[in-house]
């Protein structure tokens, strides 16, 4: 057996560097993609997007084959599935009990949670960037094989709006994960609650007014169209405060106090 390299006999505190926030974010990002669940979610996103791309490239009139259109086609799946990686990043510490390790290495739990939020957002931006690149490649494919329009005019406000919408959804996933601390409950709540709310607002006429302020499905529409007004920003901010801010605050409060066991 190997002998251990052990520290000297005086148990005074050595001073190795602390854990920087950047390092913490890097580790949290790696944890989101190094499990089978995380990896498969990314693969499914790629597969669904590929299917949509194939459909678009083969059926859409050549005049509509542009960089902007192909990019938005190639980005649909991440809006549905990427937030689930955010959910799992938050819940796995508790459901898989890895928190016993994580929080023994970094006892400042809120700092760890914020690193999860930042790294999940970073993953979202990386996926968006990749989509834009794929969109460009597809535009060339469209030009070569279908005589597509091939316009390189990108609607940047729409793209930025889509990226921000993805960031908000991923943040909502992390927030729901932290608030519920159970993967199935958090995923069901994340997927079902907004649908229930949107459905209610459609059937109950009195809710139609509040919905324009309190339903992210509504407030994010103009964001993703790249048509934000001052009113639109106010409505978006309000709905995000309710759907992201509140669960995030609850989750941070809860995880900071809870026993890790």
């Amino acid at each position, binding site marked *: 057996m*190997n002998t*251990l390299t052990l520290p000297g*006999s005086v148990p005074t*505190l050595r001073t190795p560097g602390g854990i920087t926030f950047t*390092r913490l974010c890097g580790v949290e990002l790696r944890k989101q993609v190094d499990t*089978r669940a995380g990896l498969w979610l990314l693969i499914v996103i790629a597969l669904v997007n590929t299917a949509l791309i194939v459909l678009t490239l083969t059926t859409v009139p050549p005049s509509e084959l542009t960089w902007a259109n192909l990019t938005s086609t190639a980005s649909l799946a991440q809006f549905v599935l990427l937030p689930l990686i955010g959910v799992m990043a938050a819940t796995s510490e508790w459901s898989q*009990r890895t928190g*016993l390790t994580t929080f023994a290495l*970094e006892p400042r739990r809120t700092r760890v949670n914020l690193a999860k939020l930042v790294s999940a957002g970073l993953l979202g931006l990386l996926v968006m960037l990749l989509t834009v690149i794929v969109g460009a490649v597809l535009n060339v494919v469209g030009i070569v094989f279908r005589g597509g329009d091939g316009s390189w005019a990108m609607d940047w406000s729409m793209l930025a709006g889509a990226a921000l919408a993805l960031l908000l959804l991923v943040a909502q996933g992390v927030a729901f994960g932290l608030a519920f601390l159970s993967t199935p409950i958090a995923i069901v709540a994340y997927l079902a609650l907004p649908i229930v709310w949107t459905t209610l607002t459609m059937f109950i006429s009195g809710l139609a007014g509040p919905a324009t302020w309190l339903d992210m499905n509504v407030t994010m529409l103009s964001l993703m169209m790249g048509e934000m007004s001052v009113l639109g920003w106010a409505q978006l901010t309000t709905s995000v405060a309710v759907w992201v801010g509140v669960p995030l605050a609850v989750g941070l409060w809860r995880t900071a106090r809870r026993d890790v066991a």
Partner: protein
Amino acid sequence: MIQAEHLTKRYRSRLVVDDVSFVCRPGRVTGFLGPNGAGKSTTMRMLCALTTPNSGRSLVLQHPFRELRNPGRHVGVLLDASAQHGGRTGREILALSACLMSLPAARVQRVVDVVGLTAREADARTRTYSLGMRQRLGLAHALLGEPQVLILDEPVNGLDPAGIRWMRGLLRSFADAGGTVLLSSHLLHEVEAIADDLIIIGGGRILAQGSAAELTSTSGGLEELFFDLTAQHGRGQHGRGQYGREQFGREQFGREEVAS
């Protein structure tokens, strides 16, 4: 050095840890003994800031755990070998922590070798691990940051006799080099064979503490002492039989249960 000062933890009306104070000294292995539900795990989680005490405090290397920066470089912690993501390989788990602690990647292979995991085992997902392999991985993880203090909850649980013997040697050399070791166990004879100091806890209270030589020199040895103490001081509502020998024997491989 580990110092616990009047640690107390209450879950609703139940007092799980009641005014527990002790010191674990460098260069010595301190055994933490007690029946199931005695409060060992809760106490150890309080030492690592994973559970907040209702009152009292604890220091590791003269600092509250929460104030240690990069604590993995000072304190190696193994509280539950099964608490790992089943979808990660043992090597990936170690690599993640090495990265977090700013350790060179080579350190991972080093601790894998130290605990005797084969390359194949290290590269398997932990879902497939036996309890013994989990304990080895957990110990590798605790040693990763070259700490001066080890806090280990039931580390010999699930190890085969050769593994237990190996663990004994490893902890001995760690302490001999000036490290502080706190380990809990149900296994009286194991603790007797490793520990320099003993803390016996029952019903959340410390029943006895002192050097192992001192405590085991009483009539009948450690076993008699242990059963005498835990029977006398067991939680009142369960009566005297709660910590009887038979009960203990049956439960000794079970996971310690503490309300959470």
